[in-house]
């Protein structure tokens, strides 16, 4: 790639997935990025720390705009080129026999999938053998561990000469003369009146009995959930979507729904340990799509909603293009 921003200083506020992906895209174009993060380390207070980490543009078409599917596909090649540990093993979508109609509905709404029978499911996920008769197999999807990916991205940015300053509560107006990329998430809602918070809750389990190789989605008419495998036998079960900016701890209702789904996937998960119960508040615009909002020297990159890892690559690249175009004009 050419480096149209060679030597240009850019201040980024926020070291969640938006800030870090913006930094990666801008430093690849030659910019000298400095990230200013409110908390003391990567992840604290960032809702991307709580993310599922599914790079599932085709599955997400069910219940999201077409743009999510189209723009999300870049994530499948973008992340593996920048952080280690991206697993390209697809997604398996299942439903309990009584919710079979949900599978049909999803098959109609999405593409790039194939039907699998009980044998096919057992071949993909041996621990689920005999439990489901039918499923949808999205072969061309991937997943990552968001926490490892955020840490790896931060390390890559620093290796590249970028700088991350922690414990640093700044606002876009605090910078003179340099372009500012505002990735504060929900904290930017005073500048972005359309932004709202959508609460999400998740559970992390550790199981010795059930191993999965890829994200498994369990469809349900009311509470669909996904289970994403991570290293060391960890399984992340997520996530609720509650229209509320409230960041209080996980409610009993949500915990019961998530754990019930895990148990429905495999009864042996009853013996799994609950390692973590967590909640976060996702920033979202009314159309649930991210936006780049330009105001003078400040570009806000916000509203990633449920699609932080999926959509940040496409928007970070557009951000890079915009800054490059502006820099070329000024030169």
């Amino acid at each position, binding site marked *: 790639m050419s480096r149209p921003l060679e030597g240009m200083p850019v201040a980024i506020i926020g070291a969640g997935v938006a800030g870090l992906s913006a930094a990666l895209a801008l430093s690849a174009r030659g910019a000298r990025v400095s990230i200013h993060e409110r908390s003391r380390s990567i992840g604290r207070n960032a809702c991307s720390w709580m993310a599922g980490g599914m790079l599932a543009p085709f599955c997400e078409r069910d219940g*999201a705009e077409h743009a999510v599917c189209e723009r999300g596909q870049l994530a499948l090649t973008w992340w593996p080129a920048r952080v280690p540990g991206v697993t390209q093993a697809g997604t398996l979508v299942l439903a309990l026999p009584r919710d079979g109609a949900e599978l049909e509905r999803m098959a*109609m709404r999405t593409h790039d999938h194939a039907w699998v029978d009980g044998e096919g499911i057992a071949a993909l996920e041996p621990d689920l053998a005999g439990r489901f008769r039918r499923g949808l197999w999205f072969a061309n999807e991937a997943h990552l561990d968001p926490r490892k990916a955020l840490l790896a991205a931060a390390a890559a940015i620093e290796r590249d000469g970028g700088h991350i300053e922690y414990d640093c509560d700044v606002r876009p107006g605090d910078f003179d003369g340099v372009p500012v990329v505002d990735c504060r998430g929900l904290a930017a809602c005073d500048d972005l009146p359309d932004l*709202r918070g959508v609460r999400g809750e998740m559970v992390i389990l550790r199981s010795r009995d059930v191993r999965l190789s890829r994200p498994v989605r369990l469809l349900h008419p009311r509470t669909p959930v996904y289970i994403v495998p991570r290293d060391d036998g960890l399984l992340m079960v997520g996530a609720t979507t*509650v229209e509320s*900016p*409230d960041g209080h701890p996980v409610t009993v209702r949500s915990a019961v729904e998530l754990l019930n789904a895990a148990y429905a996937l495999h009864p042996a998960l009853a013996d799994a340990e609950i390692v973590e119960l967590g909640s976060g508040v996702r920033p*979202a615009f*009314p159309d649930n799509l991210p936006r780049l909002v330009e105001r003078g020297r400040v570009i806000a990159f916000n509203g990633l909603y449920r699609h932080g890892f999926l959509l940040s690559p496409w928007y970070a690249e557009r951000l890079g293009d915009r800054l490059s175009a502006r820099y070329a004009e000024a030169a």
Partner: protein
Amino acid sequence: MDDLDLYGRRLSSRLLLGTAQYPSPACLEHAVRAARSEIVTVSLRRESGGPSGGQPFWKLVQGLGCRILPNTAGCHTVKDAVTTAHMARELFDTPWIKLEVIGDDDTLRPDVFGLVEAARILCVEGFEVFPYTTDDLGVAGRLLDAGCRVLMPWAAPIGSGRGLTDPYALRTLRAHFPDVPLIVDAGIGLPSQAAAAMEMGYDAVLLNTAVARAGDPVRMAAAFAAAVGAGRSAWLAGPMGERDMASPSTPVMGLAQWT
């Protein structure tokens, strides 16, 4: 004017929409416009996660310009439903409440005993109650005794899209309570089913999943608006009714017999 009168409020739209499960609030807004709905329901418990005021989503819903019918979705006990109704009155500044007391989690079947009890409490407290009930005639009578002035019988379980599973029961309700506004709430999956309910003389239809989970919610909202309008006109026009014998629409008497 063919207005619908609900607790003294006159409305021209006969299609009520729920606000859950849309791909985005923007999509919800476009769907409500396309449906030309004047009433939307909002779930307090499901969508809020707690009673903290000024939720952005609720502000968004209030910005739709519709009358808000808060509901007690997800409540399993009388106490829970009554508490939620109090919360709703405070938050939305309305005496209206769509009362749901769920008796079974799999079918979301109303607990009609709890429903009647909660309706009685809330009516005494001055609420204007829209009870989500089954098509049971006896229960309907009890709800009216409790003080309800509108009834909302289901067509089929919530979100099932199965349509009018017991047309006979729905007709019976209509026949027994000709002057009570009856709204079919839940179970409608297709515009033709909404039209069928309106052709029976139902006053309005309330739906959510059929629009929100359609491939194109906005287009489906418009389709439902057209169907509800057609069904209402058909009812007002006086359907001909079925008969056993064929009756030619052109008189045959006096035609030349060539065969």
